[in-house]
């Protein structure tokens, strides 16, 4: 009997384990001034932060829902728990972390990765960081890697936090930025001093265990002049039938001649609404490199943005998205060229199957003063069946004649001609199709950290079975 060639959905079962949550630790669902004040009380907020939260709530209530992307009608904000008390305060020794939480991260391989290939690790469980550690030799270089709350209460960093927190992504940016400003909790603060090259990556891992909850971590990274950092972010959650929400925020400051590589592998469960906001500002001669893999979530709105603010600033965005059954993933990037001789390069791949919906959405803006700037955008989409959908919506807004902007996009299926060519060289049809799909993703997967590239191959689970029917 012939079996039809097929490509398996991303297998997220690996991440689908859970522990019973203690409901006494969960705050009341919904978003009200009383709940915001309770979060501020619980976290011992400084006055300015409490005022900031309440102001953000006002903005949230006034701001309309988005009306241009995937439907988020299934997200009932009145049922989302925005804060869950931690079972432990943050630890710097792995052995001190409670067994249940420790078991979660050990299953995810985080402690092993820390030992083998990372300069530091942060682990967030529901609303708070439960573990943070940085290698001694890295700390001795002056690198700060801690949770954001600790930094805010530390006189050495309070001013830095106050002057950078939600300045790149103000609460007025959109409704879920305002929500983040009101209920944010957890996340990391990283500072890399001038000229310091952090040779091995730092990693934060975010795990949302509780049912019907939201995670609102805030990541703030400052890479000072001439410094280098590779930061990896991973996220996952077990699957529930109730909607969960991730509305995190990432703000990255890349100073003069500094480089920051920010890699994300997102494996949220398929009940998750991932409405995350990421933004970087890059000064003269600096560079931001985004590497983004989006595999999970029910609905995603995710567009890391680069503001090229200093002359000669550069950005690169490399992304891959895989949308399977029940997923509507709206991903892409935004670039603003706001200084002369800046450059941006965008390269994405998306794969749709089993009714999954992929949308690549981008914008490239070149301002009047961005003379000599260049931008190149390339996006390719692969459709693996006719019940799926793939759209590309790239926008370009060019306001100077001293710029070069190129854009190209392709959409299609596995080419019969290429399959025929490979088969004429002795490959089976199954092998030929598998090779083509792997090759399609290769440009992007090779940019991922090695362990994640291996994981991505496992995740995509490209399995060609039998002969083609």
């Amino acid at each position, binding site marked *: 009997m012939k079996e039809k060639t097929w490509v398996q959905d991303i297998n997220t079962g690996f991440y689908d384990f859970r522990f019973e949550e203690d409901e006494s630790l969960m705050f009341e669902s919904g978003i009200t001034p009383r709940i915001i004040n309770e979060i501020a009380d619980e976290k011992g907020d400084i006055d300015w932060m409490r005022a900031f939260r309440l102001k953000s709530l006002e903005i949230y209530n006034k701001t309309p829902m988005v*009306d*241009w992307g995937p439907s988020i009608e299934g997200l009932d904000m009145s049922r989302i728990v925005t804060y869950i008390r931690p079972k432990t305060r943050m630890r710097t020794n792995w052995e001190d972390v409670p067994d249940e939480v420790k078991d979660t991260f050990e299953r995810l391989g985080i402690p092993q990765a820390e030992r083998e290939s990372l300069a530091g690790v942060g682990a967030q469980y529901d609303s708070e960081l439960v573990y943070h550690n940085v290698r001694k030799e890295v700390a001795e270089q002056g690198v700060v890697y801690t949770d954001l709350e600790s930094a805010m209460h530390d006189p050495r960093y309070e001013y830095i936090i106050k002057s950078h927190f939600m300045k790149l992504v103000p609460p007025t940016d959109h409704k879920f930025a305002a929500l983040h400003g009101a209920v944010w909790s957890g996340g990391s603060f990283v500072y890399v001093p001038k000229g310091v090259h952090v040779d091995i990556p730092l990693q934060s891992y975010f795990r949302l265990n509780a049912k019907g909850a939201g995670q609102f971590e805030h990541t703030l990274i400052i890479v000072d002049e001439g410094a280098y950092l590779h930061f990896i972010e991973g996220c996952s959650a077990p699957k529930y039938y109730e909607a969960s929400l991730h509305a995190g925020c990432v703000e990255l400051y890349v100073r003069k001649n500094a480089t920051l590589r920010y890699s994300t592998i997102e494996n949220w469960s398929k009940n998750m609404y991932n409405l995350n906001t990421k933004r970087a500002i890059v000064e003269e001669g600096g560079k931001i490199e985004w590497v983004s893999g989006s595999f999970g979530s029910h609905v995603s709105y995710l567009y890391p943005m680069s503001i090229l603010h200093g002359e000669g600033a550069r950005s690169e965005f490399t992304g891959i998205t895989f949308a399977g059954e029940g997923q509507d993933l709206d991903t892409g990037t935004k670039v603003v060229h706001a200084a002369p001789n800046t450059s941006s390069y965008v390269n994405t791949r998306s794969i749709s199957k089993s009714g999954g919906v992929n*949308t690549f*959405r981008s*914008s490239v803006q070149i301002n*009047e003063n961005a003379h000599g700037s260049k931008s190149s955008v390339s996006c390719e*989409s692969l*459709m*693996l*069946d*006719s019940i*799926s*959908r*793939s*759209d*590309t*919506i*790239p*926008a*370009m*807004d*060019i*306001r*100077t*004649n*001293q*710029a*070069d*902007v*190129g*854009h*190209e*996009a*392709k*959409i*299609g*299926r596995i080419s019969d001609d290429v399959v025929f060519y490979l088969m004429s060289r002795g490959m089976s049809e199954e092998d030929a199709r598998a090779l083509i799909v792997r090759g399609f993703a290769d440009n992007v997967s090779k940019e991922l950290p090695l362990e994640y590239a291996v994981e991505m191959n496992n995740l995509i689970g490209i399995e060609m079975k039998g002969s083609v029917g």
Partner: protein
Amino acid sequence: MDKIKINQLPAPTWRHLKMNFAEIEAREYSHFVVPSMDVPNVAKAAVVKNAFDMAAGWGEMLSETIRDSCLQLAIGGSIKEPLRLDYGFEAGKNAASRVEIVAAPYSETTVIAFYETDGASKGSAAVQTVVKAGEGAKVHLVQAVKVGSGFQFINDVAIREDDRARVEVTQLYLGGHAVYGGIRSDLAGYKSDFQNQIGYLLGQDETLDINVVSSHSGRKSNCDIIVKGVLSDNAQKVFRGTIDFLNGASGATGAENEDVLLMSEKVVNKTIPLILCAEEDVEGSHGASIGRIDENSVFYMMARGMSLEQIYQLMANAKILSVMNYIDDQAAKDRILQMLGGEDYGD
């Protein structure tokens, strides 16, 4: 005055980009205009009552404001001489016109329309051309637009194609204070084909807002959209181009490409080329090249004694002339050259 939205993107994006639609003042387009015509005997022309029953590139809101009357051109065979339509618009009036080209199966024709006003004339016009192409019919629609500095011109082409029909639309936008162009092509027929070439030349404070939608439901349908333009002074332009592969359009192909030359530091160019895909067995692509002339070309021409100004003028002329080359009719070409400034254009 109330506003209405026209030229809407089939799939909207971020509002702050201000590309999702164009907004114009709501007006009653009550002054029905019939163009002067030069129609060969083999075609039939008549003003008829006929409600618009298709999708329009400029959108539903404006279609509703245009009366049901239309000039219907019935094409029965292969017509070698083009049908020529010439529009003049009275100053201060909100003119409206709808022309319906009904091409019988396996008929063949070219329709050439000119829309011109005096340089200083004020007013507005909303004109719509409907093309209903029967099986195997071939229609080439040529439009050239140059309106006054106080004139608002809104142009729409709505196309429906049956099996193996081929419709080609060549448009030249050569100036106007506020010009809007919409095209909607429904490729419902097997192997139906839509070819679209648009050239534009904008300067001073002129604005142009274009929305092209090629909707593919027919198997092995094809579209090619080519847009070439030049912006100088304070000109502003938005180009929305959408290839929409609907489920069932297996074997369909579509390509769109825009090439824009920017000749001033104060121009604003917005481009948003969409591909929407609900069918596996299709091939779609789009590309855009926006900015200045590449350095190698400049170096090559300067090495042959040309100044930078001459090089830019040459390249600007070349863009418009390359779109004109899609027009076979010499009389139409000559008139377009006159609109561009005379016979010296392109020398």
